[in-house]
């Protein structure tokens, strides 16, 4: 059985600028993988290529063994890949329930009756503790609630793989540990997760494996403890101490 997600030799050029060069890795079913790297290292670009927002200049992406690179974004979503966005963006003028319903109506690969869809949507809202605000428009929710709503919306598409893009930015320590627990629980539901995050403590504690990008190339991959002691990673983050003096 092939890995759930196979990223093979992805290259992405924007005009003359190479944002990603030859990035390859794979993610197994049920894994939680952290994707880290300094500013501008290409993490978001990679997310956008996996979800079909951008088209790779070269390379292939396979999901469940089938090539998905080149498919339009909505078809990739239907294959079972869900995502959240760096800047939280629920459908502001729709209610929380409607937000989630859109996920369950369009994302699911199986067709359900109306009532079942609504139940599913409510269930998704419950998992993020928003069921009591189902009828409230997203614009009237707090930023935290909007973040959770966006997660619920993605989960409602019944995904096999979910990509979380800097979900924890701006959270306080309690909220961060809640988020970490939540991500760990996704494993029990058999959902594979890729997390992009800057809060290193959080990403270290919820990822089983970490991939490090720097300036568009993969510079390290491995267990969290190994990755942070990797000299190349340290110099990518802290700067090369030989540059000066």
């Amino acid at each position, binding site marked *: 059985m092939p890995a759930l997600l196979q990223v093979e030799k992805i290259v992405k050029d924007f005009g003359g600028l190479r944002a990603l060069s030859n990035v390859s890795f794979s993610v197994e079913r049920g894994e939680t993988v952290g994707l880290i790297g*300094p*500013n*501008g290292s290409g993490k978001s670009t990679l997310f956008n290529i996996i979800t079909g927002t951008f088209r790779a200049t070269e390379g292939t992406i396979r999901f469940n063994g089938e090539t998905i690179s080149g498919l339009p974004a909505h078809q990739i979503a239907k294959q079972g890949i869900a995502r959240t966005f760096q800047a939280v963006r629920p459908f502001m003028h729709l209610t929380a329930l409607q937000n989630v319903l859109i996920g369950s109506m369009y994302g699911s690969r199986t067709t359900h009756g109306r009532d079942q869809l609504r139940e599913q949507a409510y269930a998704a809202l419950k998992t993020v503790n928003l069921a009591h605000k189902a009828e409230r428009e997203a614009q009237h929710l*707090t*930023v935290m609630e909007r973040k959770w709503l966006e997660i619920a919306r993605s989960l409602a598409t019944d995904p096999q793989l979910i990509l979380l893009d*800097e979900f924890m*930015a*701006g959270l306080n320590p309690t909220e961060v540990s809640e988020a970490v627990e939540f991500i760990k629980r996704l494993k029990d539901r058999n959902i594979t997760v890729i997390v992009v995050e*800057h*809060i*290193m*403590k*959080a*990403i*270290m504690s919820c990822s089983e494996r970490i991939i490090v990008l720097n300036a568009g190339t993969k510079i390290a991959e491995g267990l969290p403890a190994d990755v*942070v002691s990797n000299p190349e*990673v*340290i110099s990518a*983050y*802290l*700067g*090369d*101490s030989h*540059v*000066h*003096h």
Partner: protein
Amino acid sequence: MFIIENLHVSYGELQVLWGVSLKVPQGSIVALLGSNGAGKTTTLKTAMGMMKPTQGRISFRDQDLTLIPTHKIVNSGLFLVPEWRGTFATLSVLENLELGAFPLRARPFKDKTLEHVFELFPRLHERQSQRAGTLSGGERQMVAIGRALMAKPDMLMLDEPSLGLAPLIVQNTFKLIERLCREEGLTVLVVEQNVNIALGIADYGYILENGAIVGEGTTDNLLADQRIQEAYLGI
């Protein structure tokens, strides 16, 4: 002396700075360090009046800068070279530099400063009629710093000057910043991810983590400080 006192800043309901305080003494170089998303850029933007703080005070040479529009702050002698460099791609190199002298305080010295900038960057002199958009990354960095000097600032703030540049160019940039401070008395606040190179030229440094200052000290003390590793790598 440039002083930030107890600065709180929010994007909407999302608070990103929680009581940041720092000082940059006249004629010194201070580094503001921290990982991505720690709030470094927000601190600079707020200092330049591009974001409104919910609490706190910013002052420069005893003049209160809080809630003053950006163009007036520039005119008072504070200049920011932003993360995105801030060159106008469709304008020529010369026009970019001339625009640097837009603040009224700088206009009378325009020709003289221009000469000085061309001395510092002979390359820009050669390319003065070229559009800035056609320059290399390193050359655009020169335009950005040259443009800053044209404004006759008393204090320069630089946001990630090393971003996206080759090591040699980074090195030259930092040498130049050091020289401008030591020889011409420019006060500098530099925001960097690259700790080692920033502390290589700084007199003093602050560490920002999750929107709050978690450590500060002289360069040597900071280089030995475990908190830097912690702030950046979570270990």
